[in-house]
């Protein structure tokens, strides 16, 4: 049987005064690709930062491999983070170093490996994402898709057990999108990873995900395998899948009735 690498229970989170999550519970099975989908602006990135321990929930817990991310000591948290990895939306490559040095950076920081072994490892990682030829380029010389692949190579440099993708498909052309979809699937299998993909590109991610959650209205509105999600009878889920402008997820940001707002008190 498979176990859960991450499980979140009854999590509530406020950013300042604003409630981001009312009550979130979800679990990520080891070895699987789990998709977390939802409209933009509902704090999907925040969820990944909560799993990584960069933010602390107001209530509830996040368990990673049996330990509560927010209750362990700082040193233990840093140990845990070596087993997880995150691909940021912007790539977050270090702009003052070449692609090669970017990928080598975590290896140089966390291992005492010989420079020649590091070189081999980096080349292998870059080969996996198809950028071995771009090793000496600087991040500002890369296209958006290439930058994301380079960041992916850096994210897998330390052979993590869990990798979290933050909007990997956002702003990509169809070809690099296809490349990334294929890469996520292939890496998950080849490196025995567990992947969490946070995205709003429904079609792409449902093609590769083993399990999916849909978030809206500060909570999880649907969960299941891609088949179950597609056949869900929840109007919320269907609105999201079809991309309807209005529905259970309202088009309008909460406000006074428009008549009252425009005509003043006379309306």
């Amino acid at each position: 049987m498979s176990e859960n690498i991450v499980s979140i229970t009854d999590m509530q989170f406020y950013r300042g005064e604003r409630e981001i999550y009312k009550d979130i519970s979800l679990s990520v099975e080891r070895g699987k690709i789990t998709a977390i989908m939802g409209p933009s602006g509902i704090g999907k990135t925040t969820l990944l930062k909560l799993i990584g321990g960069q933010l602390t929930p107001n209530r509830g817990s996040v368990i990673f491999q049996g330990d509560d991310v927010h209750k362990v000591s700082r040193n233990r948290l840093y140990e845990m983070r070596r087993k997880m990895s995150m691909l940021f939306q912007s790539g977050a490559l270090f702009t003052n170093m070449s692609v090669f040095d970017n990928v080598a950076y975590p290896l140089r920081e966390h291992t005492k490996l010989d420079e020649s072994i590091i070189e081999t490892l980096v080349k292998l990682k870059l080969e996996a994402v198809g950028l071995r030829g771009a090793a000496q380029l600087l991040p500002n010389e890369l296209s958006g898709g290439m930058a994301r692949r380079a960041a992916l190579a850096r994210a897998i440099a330390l052979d993590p057990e869990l990798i979290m993708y933050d909007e990997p498909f956002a702003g990509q052309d169809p070809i690099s999108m296809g490349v990334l979809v294929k890469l996520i699937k292939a890496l998950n299998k080849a490196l025995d990873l567990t992947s969490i993909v946070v995205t709003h590109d429904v079609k792409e991610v449902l093609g590769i995900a083993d399990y999916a959650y849909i978030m809206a209205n500060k909570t999880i509105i649907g969960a299941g395998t891609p088949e179950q999600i597609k056949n869900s009878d929840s109007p919320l889920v269907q609105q999201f899948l079809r991309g309807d402008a209005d529905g259970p997820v309202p088009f309008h940001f909460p406000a006074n009735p428009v008549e009252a707002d425009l005509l003043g008190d006379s309306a």
Partner: protein
Amino acid sequence: MNFLVNYFSGLGKSTLNRVNGVGAASIMLYGALFAFPQWKNIRLTISQIYIVGVQSLLIVMVSGLFIGMVMALQGYTILVNYGAEGSLGPMVALSILRELGPVVTALLFAGRAGSALTAEIGLMKATEQLSSLEMMAIDPLRRVVSPRFWAGIISLPMLTLIFSAIGILGGHLVGVDWLGVDAGSYWSIMQATVEWEKDVVNGIIKSAVFALVIVWIALYKGYSCIPTSEGISQATTQTVVYSSLAILGLDFILTALMFGI
């Protein structure tokens, strides 16, 4: 009534925010100061010394030269009335070593290096580079903040000494070479008057204190800025304004402690 409640709650909130900020800045200072003894950090610190120190050399040297020249010119026009132009050397040397050297260099440093530090760290924050370091289990305080911190503290006193030396030479250029003050009296009276501890060392202490304050403000402002273009520009401005005010205020306090009665 409502207005009053709003006013006081706003006052309380902004006070709490301030106190929070001071606390966060202190924790950062602590983290940066004690993250030093590691070989990798020493290498990073040296490359930062190049960026904040060596690259500030030109502006510091040119300013030092002109300040020295102006001091000699002004000093000469006054001293010559009393036939005391022989004292031009100590006048230039003392005012530069005690005050102008540390203060002007620190102001230049805040504008040249402090603002760059804030912008750099702020941009690293905005592009999620700091976040990604944290997720790689690398402490950004150790690898990003600490080397820049120490580089500033090491660089500024050296820059100050260079500024003072060039200023005194600039004074010589105007006073001796141009206005005709006797070179022997320029140097010998200076040598007899300037004291190593009281004047030179105190100037170095001043500049070390200024360095601490500048890099602290610059790095904290960058680290805590709102990660947008407005946020970074605001943080950069604040760095220059706050550190300039801090330099001038502290200079008075330090002068009172060092030379006061």
